[in-house]
């Protein structure tokens, strides 16, 4: 009985050590996945949000983006939008809030591929977005490009991927 208890305790300690290592020294793929999930959270907003929250969310979005980034998005209705730097994108996000009012964003099926030199990565995911008053979710496939800049993984590219060519 004592031996079994010791074995269970040892297994628990090993599991705790493995979990702690993953928590304090996460793998790049995990860091990128967490960044994307954070982006989905701060990209969601409600018409009841105050100005402070809006500015704070915009700043948090900006902290995930590289200064020079390239964004090409296919929007509903056949339009597409292109941005070539972080500031233009953040201004567009702030300008869209009074128009869109409510936005729910979810990122699912995230797949991250690291480059061989582990300095860049590509993440593919499915985005589900619902604007206030609309009954249907907009569903798109997105491709994010990440680069390790100053020790942090920042988004350097974003484009819509058409599942049907």
């Amino acid at each position, binding site marked *: 009985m004592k031996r079994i208890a010791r074995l269970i305790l040892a297994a628990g300690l090993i599991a705790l050590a493995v979990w702690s290592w993953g928590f304090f020294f996460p793998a790049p793929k995990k860091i990128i996945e967490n960044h994307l999930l954070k982006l989905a959270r701060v990209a969601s907003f409600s018409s009841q949000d105050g100005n402070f929250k809006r500015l704070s969310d915009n700043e948090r979005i900006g902290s995930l983006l590289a200064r020079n980034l390239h964004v090409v998005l296919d929007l509903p209705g056949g339009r597409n939008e292109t941005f070539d730097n972080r500031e233009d994108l953040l201004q567009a996000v702030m300008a869209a809030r009074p128009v869109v009012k409510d936005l729910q964003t979810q990122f699912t*099926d995230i*797949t991250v591929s690291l480059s061989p030199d582990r300095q860049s990565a590509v993440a593919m995911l499915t985005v589900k977005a619902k604007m206030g008053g609309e009954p249907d979710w907009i569903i798109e496939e997105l491709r994010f490009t990440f680069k390790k800049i100053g020790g942090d993984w920042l988004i350097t590219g974003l484009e819509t*991927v058409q*599942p*049907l*060519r």
Partner: protein
Amino acid sequence: MPGESPSSRFWYWLRVAAVGRRPKRTLARLAVLVAASAVLFKFALVPIRVTGISMEPAFHDNAVNFINRLAYVRGQPQRGDVVGLRLSTNADATFHVLLLKRLVGLPGETISFSGGHLRVNGKPLEEPYLKLHSNWNVPEKTLGPDDYYFVGDNRSMPPQQHKHGVATRSQIVGRVLWKGNQ
């Protein structure tokens, strides 16, 4: 039974209703059911809820169905099949969202739409499942050896607002189980 109070009889029958007369057997049956369901819904059937109107009138918004992942284990996708397509071209990627579309073009064929009619290798193809008027004009696309052409049944909106086009064989998850109102 003599000597038993109504209260104890009630608790006895409540226990029987909950776990049966032989709880161990009930537990074993439950374990088998859970395992069988896990295998069935992990490897064979994908439950789906239809969202949107692109497959009207065959498949309505909010309808429930299943994608049969084993449909093409011993066969190839055929024209007219309604299939679930993953959005990613990566066959190993997980999926919480699928596109539900009808297969209208096979590998090697040339697909186009003219005046709302589907044309395969330049010849018009009859589509008996189409119920809504369409006036699509879409230029020809030639399909590669691993390419299929997919489109929804509801072509009453402009083609730019409808997801249609070419996908590879690896994007096909399976065929819809219940064929809807065709």
